[in-house]
């Protein structure tokens, strides 16, 4: 009988073997928690962050590059700090900062290094490094910082900062991790994918004490970090900085476009700030200060600020009028039968003279003819049809729509059409007499400085434009993005531009902008005065030069600076001269513009100015035709 016990024994052996096999199968095949990436503690994934792409100006001068900086890391368990005070002195921090940083690091992990001080400059690093030998548990990690060769272009370039929580959550493919940097505005944001490059991943082996033991699998799975693409702009850094200096103590914009390509030459958003302050370890402090500034330096005015175009809009009216055949180059209008006032100027018997003297009644009549061009006898219906036709013609100049510049948050502006007025007045309840302020660029029209610079470019090109853009080349200076090679037509024939350009030359030579003419350069320009609800008007000027072979088209907006000829025109013409000749002949004018302070005249929101109580309650212009534009009884 005892022999049969061998079966019990063999059964027991086999049972243990089977249990072990099942357990092994579970551990090795079924249980994912021990798979290589998730749990293997000997293989560490090291992320290599590549340098961001650099940005160059139109002559190949560096605008943005990267400076290597050093992050100081601490491993709390290894940290031996005997003389805390001396360490604080060396690092330039307070004792309580030290304690809180140390506590934060310990809270994260006592055995893994965590960030202690961020972005130490090379100089700081050099001075600290020697001392840090005495303190164990601290190590340096290389990192990089955006650096700007000149304190300019802040809003155009944008800034880079740590990714926010909501950005982290919203990303479609999980690329970024916490504490990664990401372009937050401007070029840095739009070209983030090109600039950031390709992150490298290295799998390295480490032993039980975390000591590096070489690449894993001889680096087969590693991917190399690829530096970001360099970007090439059409910016002229010298002119840009010159324009910046002219816009000191002013609120407004300067936008200059190369009409032949659509490249942005200069883009000033005033007031501005030094972009380097947002690329330092004091980012949050500096950013908060900028955000609190009442003049909104973070607001990218060239593409985001909205103004009424004022008289500069008359150029488009004249062009459309000529194209539609409602006027000829020789058409003349007098001040008679016009509800709008005008200044004292010689008779405007031609389109060129109308433009030169910026005659309000002239363009009132042009607009009136445009609206009533059709044969409909009912003035209400005729106005509706006429406005839509006009709207379509104006749209081709890029008004009332986004131009598609490579900058974030471009403002669309406003170009009213039939539907727009129907909402306020009801269908066929309005006619020309309700909307005639559009004729001189007031009323419900809203444009951005960029759009007006583009209008200048269209006129310079006699009929077409290329989408304005800051960056044309990605990785290669010669390369141009195909969408920027598409010619957009304005729908106005080239010969119709001649009288308008003639008028613009006249405006600079002897008209509204005569005080800022430049010796030796034929500039075609047009002033504009955009009315503000409170305070002084804003000064506008658009121009291009030289007339024979236009190389620069420019729009200058100076808020609360009065008439177009007073501030915008001189600044524009100085910038044009600087760009074309690299020198300034009219030093007195330049000096005056440097010194001019229009910032103090700016009426900030909420700021009380002596204005009649009833008008302060009025809503801003886009919502409702404001009091000053409300039509007075007029006979059409």
């Amino acid at each position, binding site marked *: 009988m005892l022999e049969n016990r*061998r079966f019990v024994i063999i059964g027991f052996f086999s049972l243990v073997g089977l249990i072990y096999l099942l357990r092994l199968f579970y551990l090795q095949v079924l249980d994912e928690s021990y798979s290589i990436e998730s749990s293997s503690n*000997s293989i560490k994934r090291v992320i290599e962050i590549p340098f961001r792409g650099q940005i160059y100006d139109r002559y190949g001068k560096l605008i943005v590059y990267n400076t290597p900086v050093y992050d100081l890391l601490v491993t709390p368990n290894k940290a031996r700090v005997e003389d805390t005070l001396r360490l604080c002195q060396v690092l330039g921090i307070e004792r309580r900062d030290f304690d809180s940083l140390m506590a934060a690091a310990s809270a994260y992990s006592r055995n893994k290094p965590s960030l202690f001080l961020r972005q130490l400059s090379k100089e700081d690093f050099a001075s600290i490094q020697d001392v840090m030998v005495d303190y164990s548990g601290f190590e340096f990690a290389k990192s990089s910082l955006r650096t700007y060769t000149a304190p300019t272009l802040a809003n155009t370039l944008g800034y880079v900062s740590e990714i926010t929580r909501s950005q982290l959550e919203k990303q479609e493919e999980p690329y970024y991790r916490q504490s990664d940097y990401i372009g937050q505005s401007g070029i840095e944001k739009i070209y983030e994918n090109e600039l950031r490059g390709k992150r490298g991943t290295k799998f390295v082996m480490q032993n*039980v004490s975390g000591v590096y033991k070489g690449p894993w699998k001889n680096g087969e799975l590693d991917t190399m970090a690829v530096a970001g693409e360099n970007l090439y702009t059409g910016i002229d850094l010298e002119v840009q900085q010159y324009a910046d200096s002219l816009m000191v103590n002013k609120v407004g914009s300067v936008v200059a476009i190369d009409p032949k390509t659509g490249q942005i030459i200069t883009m000033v958003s005033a007031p501005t700030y030094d972009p380097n302050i947002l690329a330092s370890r004091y980012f949050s402090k500096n950013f908060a200060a900028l955000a609190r500034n009442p003049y909104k330096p973070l607001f990218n005015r060239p593409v985001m600020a909205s103004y009424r175009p004022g008289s500069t809009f008359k150029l488009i009216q004249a062009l459309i009028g000529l194209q539609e055949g409602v006027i000829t180059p020789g058409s003349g209008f007098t001040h008679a039968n016009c509800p709008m006032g005008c200044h004292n100027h010689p008779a405007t018997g031609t389109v060129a003279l109308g433009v030169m003297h910026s005659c309000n009644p002239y363009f009132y009549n042009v607009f009136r003819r445009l609206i009533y061009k059709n044969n409909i006898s009912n003035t209400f219906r005729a106005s509706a049809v006429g406005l839509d036709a006009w709207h379509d013609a104006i749209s081709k100049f890029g008004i009332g729509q986004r131009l598609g510049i490579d900058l974030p948050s471009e403002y669309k502006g406003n170009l009213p059409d039939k539907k727009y007025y129907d909402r306020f007045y009801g269908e066929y309840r309005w006619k020309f007499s309700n909307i005639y302020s559009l004729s001189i660029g007031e009323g419900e029209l809203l444009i951005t400085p960029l759009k007006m610079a583009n209008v200048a470019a269209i006129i310079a090109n006699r009929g077409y434009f290329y989408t304005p853009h800051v960056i044309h080349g990605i990785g290669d200076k010669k390369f141009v993005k195909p969408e920027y090679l598409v010619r957009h037509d304005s729908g106005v024939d080239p010969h119709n531009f001649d009288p308008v350009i003639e008028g613009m030359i006249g405006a600079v030579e002897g008209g509204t902008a005569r005080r800022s003419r430049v010796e030796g350069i034929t500039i075609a320009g047009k002033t504009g005065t955009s009315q503000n609800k409170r305070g002084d008007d804003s000064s506008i000027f658009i121009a291009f030069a030289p007339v024979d072979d236009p190389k620069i088209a420019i729009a200058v907006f100076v808020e609360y600076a009065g008439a177009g000829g007073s501030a915008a025109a001189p600044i524009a013409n100085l910038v044009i001269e600087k760009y074309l000749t690299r020198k300034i002949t009219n030093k007195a004018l330049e000096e005056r513009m440097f010194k001019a302070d229009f910032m103090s005249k700016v009426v900030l929101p909420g700021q009380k100015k002596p204005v009649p109580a009833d008008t302060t309650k009025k809503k801003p212009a886009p919502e409702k035709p404001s009091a000053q534009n409300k039509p007075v009884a007029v006979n059409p």
Partner: protein
Amino acid sequence: MPENKPITKNVDWMVVLIYIACLLIGWVNIYAAVYNPEVRTSMFDLSNNAGKQLMWIGTAALLIICILVIDYKFYETFSFIIYAVVIVLLILVLFAGSNINGSRSWIKIGAFSLQPAEFSKLAVSLAISKYLSDPAISLSRKLKDYYPIMGIIALPAFLILLSNETGSMLVFASFAIVLYREGMPGFIPAIGMVMAALLIITLLFVKWYIAAAIIVIAGLVIWLMPVMTRRRGGLWATIVISLVMIGIVFGVDFFMNNVLQKHQRGRIMVLLDPDSDPRGIGWNVIQSKIAIGSGGFTGKGFLQGTQTKFDFVPEQSTDFIFCTVGEEHGFVGTAVVVFLFVCLISRLVVLAERQRSRFARVYGYCVAGIIFFHFMVNVGMTIGLMPVIGIPLPFFSYGGSSLWSFSILLFIFLKIDAQRPFTLSRG
């Protein structure tokens, strides 16, 4: 005449082949475990454990030849003398031994160390076999026949305990298998298992619940037994057994706190919950499981293991050699090793059963039991099913003493088995 047939004809080649397979797989994995990508040394380099193991394998081969050449009757005749020699060595080591890893159990000879405790298994096996070869001894009827066996086991066990080698001492538990086969009543190993089960359950659950559960089960037994078996006498037995079990449940605390040493207590607690002390005692278990688990189905490949290579798993080439197999060769590798062991042990049982002499059969069971116990505990601890007890995996783990002792143990049995046609049955 069969006597003239060479030993090679009669030896059980299946066991020999498995033995060789284990040695080779073990040797390759020892090389992988000590392999350092920065300082590459050859498998044959005597400066690393793989090279040394190869030397141990070579010397083991010489030993095996000696064993096969020596007359098979020698082992039975000299059983008690071998036993006595080992006991003397065990005593000697207490005074002259060198201290390695906290246990004074090694005798240093030049660059190499020998561990007499490893050879105590062989000595006890031979002694028990010799004692049981007396046909008058019956384990199923006479209690006094157990005393000499207890003595044979207790003496070396005590000496080993003195030298702080608890693991080697626990191996003597494997003789329960032999005793069971030779007539020990089945309830004795059953009680042992129930005690172990109660110990673990007690540590996992609230004691009063367990006591309540035992009473409920006892009640069911008392109520159902007359119906099922038509017997009546079980009432008092059931009550006594239940009370004893409840007593054990409440005695566990005493056992844990007063009988076990602190590190032993820790090892049992870690078995139940490895995360209770991840940086301390739990470390070995967690790291070992990560290493094996990260191998996946086919493993990371020869020399590609990282957990074992970079010292995450302690004692990689000795007690935790199974981790290297698991990490580099995956489930395929571990399954092959488990399969080899189950085959070897089962084959040994089959061989033992065909012996004509009781000495040979008992000895065969001893060999099977010892190898099985090592396998069960060693592999079990690496996969978290057994407490961490430092005993080697036979034929795999690095170490001359264990390789020699297992080889001698095994080949003495193969020699006896090969001579089976000429042995007279006495049992």
